[in-house]
C-alpha cells in the first residue's frame, strides 16, 4: 500500500468523537504524518488564534451543537476563505449536502460511505482543484482591477442597443456620473452616436462629450469589440484632451500677441527712434544746433518714442 509522505495540515470540526477517531484512522492509513487539528464546536474553531494559512483542508460536520445547517456553512466559509471545505453528513441530510455545495463548499462525504480510499481521494482532489479555483479567481480579480482601476475612462456598451453596460472609476470621475446612474442608459447621454461606426477599431476619433453637469469636453476615443458576460459588446476608451486643446489655443493666442508686439517694435517704436537718429545727423551735418524747428521735431519724436514704449509695456503686461 502506498502511503503519502507529503505534509498535510487538516482541520476537522466534528462533535461526535467516534466519528472523529474513525476519520483520523482513515487519514493515517493513507498519509504518513497528517497534522490534524480537532474542534468539537463551531465557537472553538471561530475563536482559535492560530493562523489558517498553513491549513490545507477543512472537514466539517454539518450538525454541531452550537451551530448547524446553512448558517454553519456560511460562517465557516467566511473564515476559511482560501481553504477548501468538505462537508460531512449522514444519509438523512443528503439534500442539505447538495445545498452546502451550492453555498460554496468544495465537496461532500456521506459518513456511512467513508473509507480511507474515498477520504484520501476527496482530500487530494479538493486541495488541488481549489488551488486552480483560487488562480482563476485571482485572474478574474486582476482583469476586473485592470478595468476598474484603469486611469483611462472606459465605457462598455451593448453592441445592439448602444446602452451602457459598465463603466469604470475613472469614468465616474471624469463625467461626474455615479455608475448606477449610467448603467442601462443610452450612450447618447454622453455623446451623439449617430453616424458613428463602432466597427472602426483602428482610428482614434475626436469627439465632443457631455458630463453630468452638461459641461462639454473634447475627447479622443477608441472603440473595440469584446465579449461581456457572453454578449457582444463595445468597449469605448476615452481620453480627455480638453486641457491640451485649451493650452494650445492659449499658446496660439500668445504667439499672435507676440507677433503684434514684434510688429509694433519694428514699426511704431522704431519710427520715432529713426526720426531722432535722422534729426541728430542733420543737426550734426548742418551745425544748426540752434535750429528751433529741428529741435522741436526732436522733442516730438522723443515723446512719441516714450508713448510707444509704454504701449508695448502694457501689451506685454496683459499677456
Amino acid at each position, binding site marked *: 500500500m502506498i502511503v503519502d509522505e507529503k505534509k498535510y495540515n487538516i482541520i476537522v470540526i466534528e462533535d461526535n468523537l467516534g466519528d472523529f477517531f474513525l476519520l483520523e484512522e482513515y487519514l493515517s492509513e493513507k498519509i504518513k504524518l497528517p497534522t490534524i487539528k480537532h474542534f468539537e464546536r463551531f465557537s472553538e474553531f471561530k475563536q482559535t488564534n492560530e493562523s489558517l494559512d498553513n491549513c490545507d483542508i477543512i472537514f466539517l460536520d454539518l450538525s454541531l451543537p452550537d451551530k448547524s445547517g446553512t448558517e454553519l456553512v456560511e460562517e465557516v466559509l467566511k473564515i476559511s476563505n482560501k481553504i477548501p471545505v468538505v462537508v460531512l453528513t449522514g444519509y438523512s441530510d443528503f439534500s442539505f449536502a447538495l445545498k452546502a455545495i451550492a453555498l460554496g463548499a468544495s465537496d461532500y462525504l456521506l459518513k456511512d460511505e467513508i473509507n480511507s480510499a474515498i477520504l484520501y481521494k476527496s482530500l487530494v482532489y479538493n486541495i488541488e482543484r481549489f488551488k486552480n479555483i483560487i488562480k482563476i479567481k485571482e485572474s478574474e480579480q486582476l482583469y476586473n482591477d485592470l478595468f476598474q482601476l484603469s486611469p483611462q475612462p472606459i465605457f462598455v456598451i451593448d453592441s445592439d442597443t448602444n446602452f451602457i453596460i459598465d463603466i469604470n472609476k475613472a469614468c465616474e470621475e471624469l463625467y461626474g456620473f455615479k455608475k448606477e446612474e449610467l448603467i442601462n442608459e443610452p450612450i447618447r447621454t454622453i455623446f451623439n452616436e449617430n453616424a458613428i461606426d463602432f466597427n472602426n477599431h483602428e482610428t482614434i476619433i475626436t469627439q465632443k462629450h457631455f458630463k453630468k453637469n452638461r459641461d462639454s469636453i473634447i475627447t479622443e476615443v477608441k472603440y473595440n469589440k469584446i465579449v461581456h458576460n457572453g454578449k457582444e459588446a463595445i468597449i469605448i476608451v476615452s481620453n480627455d484632451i480638453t486641457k491640451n486643446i485649451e493650452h494650445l489655443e492659449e499658446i496660439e493666442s500668445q504667439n499672435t500677441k507676440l507677433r503684434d508686439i*514684434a*510688429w509694433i517694435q*519694428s*514699426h*511704431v517704436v*522704431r*519710427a520715432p*527712434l*529713426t*526720426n531722432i*537718429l*535722422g*534729426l541728430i*545727423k*542733420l543737426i550734426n*551735418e*548742418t551745425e544748426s544746433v540752434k535750429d528751433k*524747428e529741428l529741435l522741436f*521735431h526732436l522733442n*516730438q*519724436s522723443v515723446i512719441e518714442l516714450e508713448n510707444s514704449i509704454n504701449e508695448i509695456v502694457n501689451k506685454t503686461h496683459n499677456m
Partner: protein
Amino acid sequence: MKKYIFIIDDDPISIIILKKNLELIAISQEIETFSNGKDAFNYLEKEYHKNEKYVIFLDINMPEMNGWEFLSKVEPFITSQNTTIYLLTSSINKADMEKATQFPLIKKYLSKPICKEVLIEIKEKNKL
C-alpha cells in the same frame, strides 16, 4: 524728359528729414509728398506718363493704403523702366524685408534713418 521725386510717408518728421537731406546733397528737382498710398495712387493713376521718370521713396506702415497695397495697385500700369521705388521704412522686421523681394518694382529696401551716402548713390544712379 521730366524727373519726379515722390515721398510717400505719413510721418511729417520723417518727410522733413528726407527733404533736408535731399537739399544737403543739392537735389534740384521738385519733390511731391503724399501722406498715404491712396493719395499717391490717385495722383499716379491720372498723371503717370511712360516717357517721364519717377523716383519714389515709399514707407510701409501708413493709414488708408499702406506701402504694400500701394505697390499692388500700381504694379499693373507702372514699369521699372521709368520708375524706381525705394522702400524707406523704420521696420527692420525680417518678414517685411522678405516681402519686399516679391515686388520687382522695389529697387532697394532702405532702413531709416537714411544717410547722406545712400542718397548720393541714389542721386548718381538716377542722374538727379
